């Protein structure tokens, strides 16, 4: 099989060996969950419950009107204790619904019936129902893109342009993270099924499961699953594609370019080149939503890092404080060595002040880095070596862009592609002077957007 890739990028140390062989564990006992009301990219939601309400597992607890919204469901059965602002995994304070689990039935008391605890939707056959029904189900299940910003899945699955290819993003190019790899190995059938469902909904003739070379051992399993799938027997075309191990191979745009050779136009979406890219976690959530009627109330994540003495791949209810996963013994941390906590991968994740912060729909991993791994450097002056320019997967010129941003020349910065930056962090990674390039671009984008907004207002 030909190994495909894109131009540019870098190869940070993978560090996946720590957790790649560990089977996914399920966290069963949860005492308390902190569910952020807003976990998607789009308009804010309103809580549907109030303090003191009893909720069932899977019950909708927040929703809003509008296309760019996705409801949130109770991950466990329990009682709403509080609704108040808490720190979320993006470091900002957001309204959270705090649910305390029902106490385990005392001895001799009747165990509550499952239907009293859970409130799932009826199963739905995606291959038999209409497209509208399927999309409604995806939204009702609260599914968002589980890899990145939390883009509503039902919007992504209703493109305005014809789709030729569905790509399952199994690249998992971030160091440390192995949850997708484990999912590919342990749930290959479901992954194939998820691709098939997606293909059905967007009416795509072909599906590709893209896997980086460092996960080549998952390929035979996937190929077996494809061969065994009733969907491929019914004529659906699904295949596996190996990709070179390189960061940011899992970036949506890079993935599309690697597989199809096409480039997503600046400011455009994957559908502009006839592609839909789905995260592995998202595919699994969709399968569950159709098969079991189960909304997105739990997700898999990797807990790893140098200070994590016992790494793990776990499935935990959304809203579980990571500290509770560790307290439950699924993973262990050496407090002494702990230097940094990151929600997400080391390249794009967010450094947070503690690991009390709950798991969210888009939390693919939690890294507990030791003090050596978390060494950050002070900036030195740019020596203009040009490494960032060769590494930039978007063919931007980070060094020049940084100069434009620093000198406040936002017109120039926009011209040379500030808004095209996907913030993958490759440029900062390769910089020998340890320039905080991506951070600079983030700040620059914020200012540029504000300027443009002002301009638009003035124009009016």
């Amino acid at each position, binding site marked *: 099989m030909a190994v495909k890739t894109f131009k540019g990028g870098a190869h940070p140390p993978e560090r996946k060996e720590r957790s790649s062989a560990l089977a996914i564990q399920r966290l069963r006992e949860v005492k308390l969950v902190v569910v952020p009301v807003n976990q998607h990219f789009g308009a804010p939601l309103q809580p549907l419950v109030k303090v003191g309400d009893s909720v069932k597992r899977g019950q909708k607890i927040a929703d809003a009107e509008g296309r760019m919204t996705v409801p949130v469901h109770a991950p466990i059965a329990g009682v709403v204790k509080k609704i108040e*602002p808490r720190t979320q995994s993006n470091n900002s*304070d957001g309204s959270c619904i705090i649910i305390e689990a029902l106490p385990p039935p005392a001895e001799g008391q009747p165990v509550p019936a499952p239907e009293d605890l859970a409130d799932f939707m009826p199963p739905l056959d995606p291959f038999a129902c209409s497209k509208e029904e399927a999309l409604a189900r995806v939204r009702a299940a609260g599914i968002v893109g589980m890899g990145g910003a939390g883009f509503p899945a039902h919007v992504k699955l209703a493109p305005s342009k014809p789709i030729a290819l569905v790509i399952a993003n199994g690249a998992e190019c971030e160091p440390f993270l192995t949850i997708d790899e484990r999912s590919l190995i342990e749930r290959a059938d479901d992954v194939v099924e998820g691709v098939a469902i997606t293909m059905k909904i967007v009416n795509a003739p072909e599906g590709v499961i893209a896997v980086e070379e460092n996960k080549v051992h998952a390929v035979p399993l996937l190929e077996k699953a494809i061969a065994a799938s009733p969907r491929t027997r019914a004529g659906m075309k699904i295949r596996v594609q190996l990709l070179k191990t390189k960061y940011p191979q899992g970036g949506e745009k890079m993935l599309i370019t690697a597989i199809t050779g096409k480039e997503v136009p600046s400011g455009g979406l994957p559908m502009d080149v006839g592609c839909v890219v789905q995260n592995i976690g998202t595919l699994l959530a969709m399968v569950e939503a159709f098969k079991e009627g189960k909304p997105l109330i739990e997700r898999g994540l990797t807990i790893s890092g140098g200070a994590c003495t016992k790494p793990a791949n776990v499935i935990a209810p959304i809203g579980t404080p990571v500290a509770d996963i560790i307290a439950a013994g699924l993973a262990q941390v050496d407090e002494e060595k702990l230097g940094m906590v990151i929600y997400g991968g080391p390249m794009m994740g967010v450094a947070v*002040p503690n690991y009390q912060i709950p798991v969210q729909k888009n939390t693919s991993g939690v890294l507990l880095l030791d003090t050596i791994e978390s060494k950050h450097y002070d900036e030195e002056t740019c020596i203009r070596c040009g490494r960032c320019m060769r590494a930039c997967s978007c063919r931007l010129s980070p060094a020049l862009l940084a100069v434009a941003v620093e000198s406040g020349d936002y017109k120039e910065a926009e011209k040379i592609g500030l808004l095209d930056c996907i913030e993958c962090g490759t440029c900062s990674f390769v910089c020998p002077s340890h320039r*905080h390039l991506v951070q600079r671009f983030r700040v620059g984008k914020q200012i540029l957007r504000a300027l443009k907004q002002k301009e638009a207002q003035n124009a009016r």
Partner: protein
Amino acid sequence: MSVILITVIFAAILAFVLGIALGFFQKKFHVERDPKIDEVRAALPGANCGGCGFPGCDGYAEAVATGRALTTKCSAGGASTAEAVSKIMGVDAGAEDLVTVLLCQGTKDLAVSKGDYVGIKTCRASKLSTGSVKACSWGCQGLGDCVAVCKFDALEMGDDGLPHVNYDNCTGCGMCVEECPQKLFTLVPRGKKGSIVLCSNRNVIKANVMKTCKTGCIKCEICVKQCPEKCITMVNGIPVTDYDKCTSCGVCVQKCPTHAYKLLETDVMGEKKKVPVLAEA
């Protein structure tokens, strides 16, 4: 002798022709414009040296007259010209004399920090990346965006991690108000009397305020209850003084359990500015 004669005749004719031509062209190609430009232009030396960064004296005069340039840019004319130009332009600039006040007292010792921030040393960047370096989401980031933007040397980063205002230099231009990502600055008239809360937290969980900052407003509303003039109201979680009624009696300042209340005339702008906040509170 003939040389002198020829010279004189030549010069007379040349200059006369030039004079007529200039006068004629000036009339013929006359273009209406703001008389203020001409006024400013007249006050400038006319060296057209370009030292001001504008294309010639005309360019600079136009920039000044339309408010695009400072009145002090003419280097050829020096201080006297600057004065004259300011006089022409500055007559109607008699706005209120404002100064800036920082609405945060979260020094390094009093406010709890969230972690050790590494990255670009600007407040905007730290806020974007960490939410807030301080455990208090509303607190001063202490990285001096305000100091950097101040053109008048009126702000200085103190050792306590907060910017300090030098009220002699502050012109109330409002650049810091614009720049602060936490919106912690406010402009008040110079010499204003009355009390003010030097805290901006709008934390709805009162119990958490004390965990993050020892001098934060904990929304106890003692000030509202104790004020003899009844001039304090809670607005959006922060007590606000009605300066029409405030008599600077100082009751709120004394009663405030976290020392968030201060008197503008003494504690903020007065001689003994920044009375150290007691840590035991």
